[in-house]
């Protein structure tokens, strides 16, 4: 019962913090000239531009998802089901791009393959031309940057699918078929729903991206349009702006439902007894190419940004000056991200416990859906919603001293960003926490209860030791995403509390390459530090607990 009360309390807090701005924005789309109306929707749906935006956004997201599958799915198979050398090290490394803000990866590839980029020039020289090819541009450039950022999602989910095969199924198939046929007819079909689920998540994240298309000057995508509309027409036609964001929201929700359905039945961690694990596939002569593929993927997504920023910062003459100059933003980013992480864990733990329980019920399902809802709304639109909901002195036209007091407490302070980050990235923390709690076999908690342990004692001696590392991993992921956030930090950071990411973007535009190098390396170090701590955290085994 207490657990349910905790979940309800978290759900109410989630609605207040995260769902209200989304609901406000949706509600505003049904108001025109101060009364309820479908006018905004009629206007938006009648605009031919909507279809062009839809095509542009779906094209970008589809290309990013496709590329992410091409990188992530083979990687999952090689790391989980083959005798690839060094695979334990690769398994530890492959999630790293999730902790590198996509706009930094885009800047990296603009430095390398953009106009006059280092590699572009090199290719040009090799081809005997004055100018090398500009590969980092347009839709495919943006899609490649997004795929390099998000392919670990596909790898993570596909790994679950590849691990789900049972030895008996594959051994039976091996009696009549070659290794390749077993892979094609048994192993791959079992993993396919997980791969599709991963692709849908990447599709959604790419659909939601603003900073990457902005850096590459892509015009015909929803996120750019919403910022354009919001910043030009926000005061005049607020309802129209919100109606513009609405189709995006509906598509995102549809995708979320599909992705969660596909992934929902599959736990990220094995629970209870299962059959013997299947044999690894022997790579034989494919070992060399497989190793090259894995090194290439990790090189493009991890080594390239780090080495590029080191090269730009070298010989670090401006390092001290950059750190001194950017100290306020760095400290502000660090503090806000840390506080938002604490908020996300406080909200996410009870919600994820409900969603990960053996019988999640309606409450768990509602928790699962609502945590994802704010992420389905574009960041810029969410920022506009936060500004409207959290800076007011009245409700439905009635003055309220309490609302005014709350508004003064939150809106002009960093608390507004803490709440906004909490809402925006809760799905990531929540999913990681669900993963952590899935490791706790229900029978262990039941056994503790039968043995007379109180709930608190069970939590302390059974649940936490088994899930603490996962909780920390969820927190680390959330922290890294908050550190790399761009739109919310640009639009609603309070006076005197600017964050570092827009500053890096400004410096990039003004060609301060050494500054960008030093600041980007600092951001990467800050974002990755908690992950390294988690990696050093000893693993808890069920038996020991």
């Amino acid at each position, binding site marked *: 019962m207490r657990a349910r009360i905790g979940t309800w309390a978290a759900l109410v807090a989630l609605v207040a913090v995260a769902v209200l701005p989304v609901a406000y924005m949706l509600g505003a789309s049904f108001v025109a000239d101060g009364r309820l109306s479908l006018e905004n929707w009629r206007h938006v749906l009648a605009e031919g531009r909507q279809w062009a935006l839809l095509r542009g956004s779906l094209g970008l997201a589809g290309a990013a998802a496709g590329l992410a599958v091409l990188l992530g799915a083979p990687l999952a198979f090689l790391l989980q089901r083959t005798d690839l050398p060094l695979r334990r090290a690769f398994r530890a490394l492959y999630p790293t791009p999730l902790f590198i803000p996509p706009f930094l990866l885009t800047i990296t590839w603009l430095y390398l393959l953009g106009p006059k980029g280092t590699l572009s020039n090199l290719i040009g020289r090799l081809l005997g031309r004055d100018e090398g090819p500009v590969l980092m541009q347009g839709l495919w450039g943006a899609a490649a940057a997004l795929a390099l950022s998000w392919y670990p999602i596909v790898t993570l989910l596909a790994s679950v699918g590849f691990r789900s095969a049972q030895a008996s199924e594959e051994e039976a198939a091996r009696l009549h078929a070659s290794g390749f046929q077993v892979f094609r007819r048994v192993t791959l079909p079992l993993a396919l729903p997980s791969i599709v689920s991963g692709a849908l998540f990447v599709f959604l994240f790419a659909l939601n991206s603003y900073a990457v298309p902005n850096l590459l000057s892509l015009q015909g995508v929803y996120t750019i349009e919403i*910022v354009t509309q919001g*910043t030009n027409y926000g005061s005049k036609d607020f309802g129209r702006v919100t109606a513009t964001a609405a189709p995006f929201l509906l598509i995102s929700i549809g995708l979320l439902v599909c992705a969660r359905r596909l992934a929902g039945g599959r736990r990220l961690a094995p629970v209870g007894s299962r059959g013997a694990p299947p044999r690894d596939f022997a790579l034989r002569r494919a070992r060399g190419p497989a190793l090259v593929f894995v090194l290439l993927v990790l090189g493009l997504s991890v080594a390239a940004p780090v080495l590029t920023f080191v090269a730009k910062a070298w010989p670090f003459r401006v390092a001290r000056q950059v750190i001194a100059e950017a100290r306020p933003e760095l400290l502000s980013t660090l503090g806000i991200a840390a506080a938002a992480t604490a908020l996300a864990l406080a909200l996410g733990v009870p919600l994820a416990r409900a969603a990960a329980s053996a019988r999640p019920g309606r409450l768990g399902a509602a928790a699962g859906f609502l945590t994802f809802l704010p992420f389905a709304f574009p960041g810029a639109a969410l920022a506009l919603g936060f500004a409207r909901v959290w800076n007011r002195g009245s409700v439905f036209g009635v003055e309220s001293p309490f609302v005014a007091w709350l508004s003064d*407490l939150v809106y002009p302070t960093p608390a507004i960003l*803490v709440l906004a980050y909490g809402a925006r990235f809760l799905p990531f923390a929540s999913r990681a926490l669900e993963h952590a709690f899935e490791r706790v076999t229900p029978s262990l908690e039941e056994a503790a209860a039968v043995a007379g342990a109180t709930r608190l004692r069970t939590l302390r001696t059974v649940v936490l030791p088994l899930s603490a590392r996962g909780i920390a991993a969820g927190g680390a992921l959330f922290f890294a995403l908050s550190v790399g956030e761009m*739109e919310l930090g*640009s639009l609603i950071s309070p*006076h005197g509390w*600017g964050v570092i990411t827009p500053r890096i973007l400004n410096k990039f535009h003004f060609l301060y390459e050494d500054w960008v190098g030093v600041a980007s390396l600092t951001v990467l170090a800050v974002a990755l530090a908690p992950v390294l701590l988690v990696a050093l955290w000893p693993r808890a085994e069920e038996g020991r607990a």
Partner: protein
Amino acid sequence: MHPRFLLLLPVLALFCGCSKEPAPATGGGRVTVAVALDQEYAESLLRGFEKSSGLQVDAHYDTEATKTTGLVQTLLAERDRPRTDVFWNNELSQTIRLQDAGILAPYAPTSATDLPARWRDPNGFWTAFGARARVLLVNTDKVKPGEEPQTVSDLANPRWRGRACIGNPLFGTTATHAAVLFEIMGDAEARKFFLDAKANGVVVAASNGQAMQKAANGEVAWCLTDTDDAAAALREKKPVRIVFPDQRRAHGALLIPNSVALVKGGPNPEGGKRLIEFIAGAGVERRLSEGPSVQIPLRPELPGPALLMGIREMKTMDVDFGAVAKRMTSTADFIRDQFLR
């Protein structure tokens, strides 16, 4: 409530307490400013003011990600509960829009009486100073000397098909420039010009900064941008040169000044007025001219920036920014619905 929620309270309390109390009406304490001028240029000036005045300045800067219009919309959204004392804009027409929307309060700084009258609002709602010029930045590897474009109209010239670039005309100074063109050319001619430029394959970058990068990197032959972006390319020794447009038989180059204004109902109006006195003074204008943003002083007695040779002799447009401000929305509608479509 679940005990875990107790974790939340100190965290939020900590951050809720991070905003200091508004200063008393007599001044002192903290003053808040929304700054559209790039942080790189404005921050050191504001830090200097902090030291000399004893006031703490909390600034919210414009970013390349959301542009000036983001700040303007924030000020409009905060209309009923203003959180900002001063708006330091890097152009003028959006400031006049805010004045028309009733967001600003009048305050005529005494430090700006030496500015020509055309750069001060007669009712004291805004003061303009240190300007940027809209110039053509030409890549010298792509365009031979003597063959450079000479006018903004060259955006629609078939000679430059697909080789010229502008920032997004819905944002920043390019938005102002577009509205200015509508004002001086008239609706029909301006519409034709933009549609011709579109048909001519003009490249639209996300911002002036990106337009400059495209020209500096040789992705396009030239771009229309601001002098501060052009100066960044010159400073980085990119193969570029600046052309002042429309100097012969035309309106001249467009000057877009900074502007500063007091926000009505801000938390510390007295502190805001002190900050405006500082920003509108000759000292800031001189430092903006000498600094990396190479702003052009509007006070005739101040010298022009050394990096922009001949800028003082440049022919400039005579623009009614009040009329331009009234055209901003209709121009943006056209740009969004027809030019960017």
